Structure formats: structure tokens, C-alpha cells
């Protein structure tokens, strides 16, 4: 059974494997090898039989073929109502067909499945809200990605991504030393402006354990400094773990469930090791989804809860503003029209819509809702890993049109996007279409607006 050197059914568990993949420019060889990758129909069918239980089977079976899910999908809208983008069609022609054929499919079929699962669905779960039977294509595509992964049909970047998690317990090659050093560095760089600012690593029994997205230490550590400043302003007793600091999960996007488990276990271990009261994660949607919403199940926690209560950054911000831990200078509230990008992962799929509105009430004078909004908001266009997959860049860019038009319709100049993926997608959207908007996480805006108590000001 031919298996490629790079493209195969194995997981990436060593640095050598990872480096080999990384050195394959744009995944050229990888995708070439994929053309010769065998489908292990027996194993595939065995997996399906073990895991495709009543919920998914019923969904596949009772679909009324009514098409009520069609307009719910931003891909369908962005592709000028192309019928092949109807969620039901997409899943029936892939997972549905796979089941009908009892796993006896060929390489070309699997590649089609892969292309569909990653470039025609971001697993935003919006369609599930519009189907009368509650058929959630997002859930099914996520399941399908898992099947693809076991057969080695997975976009190159995500094979790498899941390997990163397996090796570094982070989506990027940031080691424990890098991370701890970055914490020190940021505290040093900002302590002049914020006397007493620290980023405590591995402090026992803190009130808050703060966790991040690896891109922060890797590419914009300011974000970490900003988080520290806000905790400092709010007078929180907080810490970051030296290990288990990464909440994101490219493994989830890849469908590598074993790696998902390893990743969140590292975070739960940190919770248990340091015994903090609660966990707060940075402004990232899928990180919260992975570690707080899905993670407990991957690790077999029967109550579906993380070891300690866990919160998304927006929850902490809302609380800090509500309780006055952070006070906003009324003169500095955002005056220009501003809108809020509701992220699928923590709004639709985690119920934090009101928290987001509460924050906007404190900080914005002219807040404009997108339409639709809250749990009905459309995906930013880059979810489910799509932002990072070169092979599907074109599809991704087409998908961005829906968000572009939503933003334009609000008339807002500024888009607040407390989610890394949304933030990226909106940046790329501006690059692609140049509609003249700015976008931001909450942290820099809050620091700018917050009243700094005298005792925290630097002395001159």
C-alpha cells in the first residue's frame, strides 16, 4: 500500500518529520504524493461503524432535502448561490456517499472530500440553526475531517499544525524557554511605563491562570504585555503557566483528535499543578472552543467541564468593567461608528453574545450591530483553519465577501474582533478589498481608554 514520505496516514510526532514537511515548499511534494495515497477502505469503514452513531446517522437519513440550510451558509452566498455550496449537498455528496459506499472509495473521491471539508465549510455551525431538523453540517464536517485525517487526506498546513501540537504542545514552534523568556521580556519592556508590572510565571494558587494563542509570543508579544497591563490595572492576582499555556488547537481544525487531547491535557495539567481559582484565555475563539467547550470531552471528563471554571477574555473584560476593576474614561470612549465581529466559536457555540454587548455598552458611543448578528452572525470567512491553508486561498478570499458586505452595511470604520481568526480574516479582507476599515482586539483599545489610578502611574 503506497504511502508517501510526507503524505501518509502517520501522525507527525518528531521534529525530523515536521522539518521534512516544513521544507516541502508550499506542500508541493506533499500534494503530489497525495495523488498516490491509498485509501484503506476497511479501516475507514471500521472507523465509521464505530463512531457514526444514531445522531449522525439520523441526520444523514432524515434530511428532507428542503434546502432551508442553503442561505444560512456564507459560502453559498459568497459563491452567487452556487447550488453545490448548499450545506446539505456538501455533506450528502461527501459523508453521505462515503457511508452509502461503506467506505469503498478511491483516492480521487477522498481528495474531493478533503477539498470540500476544508474549503467549502469552516465548521461555523450556522446551518444547524437553520435546518428544521437541527441537522448540523458543521458538526458533520468536523467528523468528516477526522475521517480524512486518519486516511492522510489533510491539507498540508494542518498536518504541520497538528504535528506542532504533538511536538511542542503549541501551534507553533514556541518552546517553554521561548515562552517564559517572552514573558520576562515583555514585563521588562513595559515596566517603565507601568511600574510594578510583572508577568508571574507558575505562581501557585493565583486567582487567574491566563493562557494564550502561540502566535502572541511568536509574532506579537505586545498582546501578552497588554494583557498583563490590564490585569495589573484591575489588580488581579494572576499567573501564566510555564507549560500548558497554549489554548489553541490546529489539531481540532485538522481532525487529529488524539493531538487535540494531548494539547488540552497540557492545559488541564497546568490548572491542576498551579491550583488557580479560574482560567482566562486570550481573545481567541477557537482556543476557547477547543480547550473549554470541546476539550473536556476529548480528555474524557464526564461532566464536560474544565478542571477549574474557565472564561473567555470577553467575559473577564465585561466583569472588570462591570465591577469597576477597570474604569473607562468617558471622554475616551470610542466615538466613531464601531461594529463587533461575533465569533462563531465563542458566541454561537458558547453563548457569550450578551457579554460582548455589555462591553460595547461601556466602551463605544456609536455601536452598530452587523446584520445578522450574535449567534446568527456569519463566519468571518477564515474559520476552521481556512485562513492558513494555501491550497484554498482563492476559496477563502471569495468567502470573505459576505463579511465585507456586512461590515460595509454597518457604516463602521472600526471592527472589534476579539478572535484571532476573525481578526486575521478581517485584515486579509481589508488587504483584498481595501474598504478602508480598521480592526482591533479589545486589549489595546481598553488600555487606551482606561483610567489609570495615580498609584499605578510612573513617577517622573
Amino acid at each position, binding site marked *: 500500500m503506497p504511502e508517501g514520505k510526507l503524505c501518509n496516514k502517520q501522525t507527525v510526532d518528531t521534529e525530523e518529520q515536521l522539518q521534512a514537511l516544513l521544507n516541502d515548499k508550499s506542500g508541493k511534494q506533499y500534494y503530489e504524493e497525495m495523488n498516490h495515497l491509498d485509501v484503506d477502505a476497511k479501516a475507514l469503514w471500521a472507523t465509521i461503524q464505530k463512531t457514526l452513531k444514531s445522531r449522525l446517522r439520523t441526520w444523514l437519513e432524515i434530511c428532507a432535502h428542503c434546502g432551508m440550510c442553503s442561505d444560512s451558509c456564507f459560502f453559498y452566498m459568497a459563491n452567487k448561490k452556487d*447550488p453545490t455550496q448548499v450545506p446539505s449537498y456538501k455533506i450528502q455528496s461527501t459523508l453521505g456517499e462515503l457511508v452509502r459506499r461503506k467506505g469503498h472509495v478511491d483516492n480521487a473521491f477522498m481528495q474531493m472530500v478533503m477539498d470540500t471539508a476544508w474549503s467549502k465549510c469552516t465548521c461555523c455551525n450556522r446551518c444547524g440553526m437553520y435546518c*428544521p*431538523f*437541527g441537522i448540523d453540517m458543521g458538526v458533520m464536517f468536523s467528523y468528516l475531517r477526522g475521517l480524512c485525517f486518519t486516511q492522510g487526506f489533510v491539507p498540508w498546513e494542518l498536518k504541520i499544525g497538528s504535528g506542532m501540537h504533538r511536538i511542542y504542545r503549541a501551534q507553533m514552534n514556541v518552546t517553554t524557554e521561548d515562552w517564559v523568556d517572552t514573558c520576562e521580556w515583555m514585563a521588562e519592556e513595559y515596566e517603565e511605563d507601568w511600574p510594578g508590572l510583572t508577568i508571574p510565571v507558575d505562581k501557585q494558587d493565583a486567582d487567574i491562570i491566563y493562557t494564550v494563542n502561540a502566535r502572541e509570543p511568536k509574532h506579537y508579544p505586545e498582546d501578552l504585555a497588554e494583557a498583563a497591563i490590564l490585569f495589573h490595572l484591575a489588580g488581579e492576582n494572576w499567573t501564566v503557566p510555564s507549560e500548558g499555556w497554549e489554548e489553541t488547537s490546529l489539531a481540532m481544525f485538522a481532525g487529529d483528535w488524539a493531538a487535540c487531547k494531548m494539547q488540552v491535557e497540557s492545559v488541564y495539567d497546568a490548572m491542576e499543578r498551579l491550583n488557580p481559582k479560574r482560567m482566562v484565555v486570550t481573545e481567541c475563539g477557537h482556543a476557547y472552543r477547543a480547550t473549554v467547550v470541546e476539550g473536556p470531552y476529548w480528555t474524557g471528563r464526564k461532566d*464536560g467541564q474544565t478542571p477549574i471554571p474557565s472564561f473567555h477574555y470577553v*467575559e473577564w473584560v465585561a466583569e472588570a468593567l462591570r465591577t469597576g476593576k477597570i474604569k473607562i474614561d468617558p471622554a475616551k470612549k470610542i466615538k466613531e461608528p464601531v461594529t463587533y465581529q461575533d465569533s462563531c466559536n465563542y458566541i*454561537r457555540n458558547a453563548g457569550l453574545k450578551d457579554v460582548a454587548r455589555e462591553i460595547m455598552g461601556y466602551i463605544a458611543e456609536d455601536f452598530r450591530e452587523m446584520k445578522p448578528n450574535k449567534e*446568527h452572525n456569519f463566519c468571518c470567512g477564515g474559520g476552521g483553519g481556512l485562513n492558513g491553508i494555501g491550497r484554498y486561498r482563492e476559496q477563502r478570499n471569495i468567502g470573505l465577501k459576505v463579511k465585507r458586505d456586512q461590515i460595509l452595511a454597518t457604516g463602521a470604520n472600526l471592527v472589534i474582533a476579539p478572535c484571532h481568526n476573525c481578526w486575521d480574516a478581517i485584515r486579509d479582507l481589508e488587504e483584498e478589498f481595501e474598504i478602508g476599515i480598521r480592526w482591533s482586539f479589545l486589549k489595546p483599545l481598553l488600555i487606551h481608554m482606561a483610567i489609570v489610578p495615580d498609584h499605578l502611574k510612573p513617577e517622573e
Partner: protein
Amino acid sequence: MYAFVTGPLAWLSFTVFIVGIIARIIWYFRGLSWQLDRVAYKEHMAYGIKGAIRSIVFWLIPFGTHSWRFYPFFTICVFTFHIGLLFTPLFIFGHNVLLQERWGFSLWAMPEGMADFMTVAVIIAVLFIILRRNALPEVRILTTPYDYLVLAIAVAPFVTGLLAHHQIGNYNFWLIAHILAGEIFLVAIPLTKLSHFIGFFLSRAQLGMDYGIKRGGMKSKGLAW
């Protein structure tokens, strides 16, 4: 012939219907897995039930959800069709006469004019549903012959009933055709995608629990369906 279709065949079809539905329910529940579905059903039953009820109730109300409101024309068709489908057979005068004769009880019986109206409404709704299936590319692409077959099975008792009742053509023929069509319908419910008769409730309940327990139900007032 009449005796056969109303006797053993009727018993058989009712049995298949009831056993089938029960089997579906049992199979569905047994196939739920907290870990595979990633929903802690048992641990947070109260949240789950709340979510399930919300998820079902909103969808049973015409225009009760964003989706129903988004497709007003289709929503009217579906509700007309379904209300007719469920209520006409239960409350039609003729069926209740039968009930009284055989089991000695009967339900409220609707006036004749209303029965006719409901029946015609169902048929018209089906015609529109078929038209829509052909007119809209996004529905056409999903449609298979199986969909038409199922629709035909569903509407056949109404067409035949209407013909028989108004004695258009051969009454006896249409009567037996009506009874057979009804029995086919009953049998088809558990065996075809008409199983959404029960599947609707199961599936909606499951997704409702999913949202009620895992996806935000514990941190918000609940999803705005």
C-alpha cells in the same frame, strides 16, 4: 378485499408503525454517546431538557424561528401540509365513526367542510412543494426520486380519500386505494425518511441539549432559534 385491508393488513401496518417508532426511539437513545457526541447529557440533565424543549417548541411554532421567517412562502406550505397531514386523519368524521364502531370511543370530529378544506390544502401545499423543488436550483440539486416517492406516499391517502368521499369514479376502488395508501403511509413512517415523524423530535432534542449543555446554554439564556 375490504375485510383484508381493514383487518389483518391494518393490524400489520399499525404494528409496524408502532413497533418501528419505538425501535427508532430506543435505537436513537442507545446510540447517543456523551463522549462521541461530546455532550454531557446525563450530568446536566436540567440544562439539557431546557435546551431540548426550547429547540422543539420554537420550531413547532409557525414563523417561530429565524429560519421559518426567512422562508415565509415555504413555511406556509410546510405548516399547511403538516397540520393537514396530522390533524385531518385524526379528526375526520369517517375515521371517528370507525373508531366508535371498533373500539367504542371517538375523538372530536371536524365538520365536513373543514375536512375537505384541509385535504385540499394538503394537496395544494404538496403541489407547491413540488413546484418549489423544481424551481429553486438549491433544492433541485438536493432532490432525488426518493423524495418524490415519499411525497407521493404522504399525499396519496388524501387524494384517494377525497375521491372516495365525494364518490368520484368507482367508490369501492378509491376506498380500498385510500385504506391501502394510508397503510403504506403508516408503514413508511418508521421505514423511510418519513421517520422524521419521530426523528424530528429526537434530533431537535439532541441539538437542543447540545446547545443547552455544551454550546453556551450554561452561560446564556439560550440560543435564539
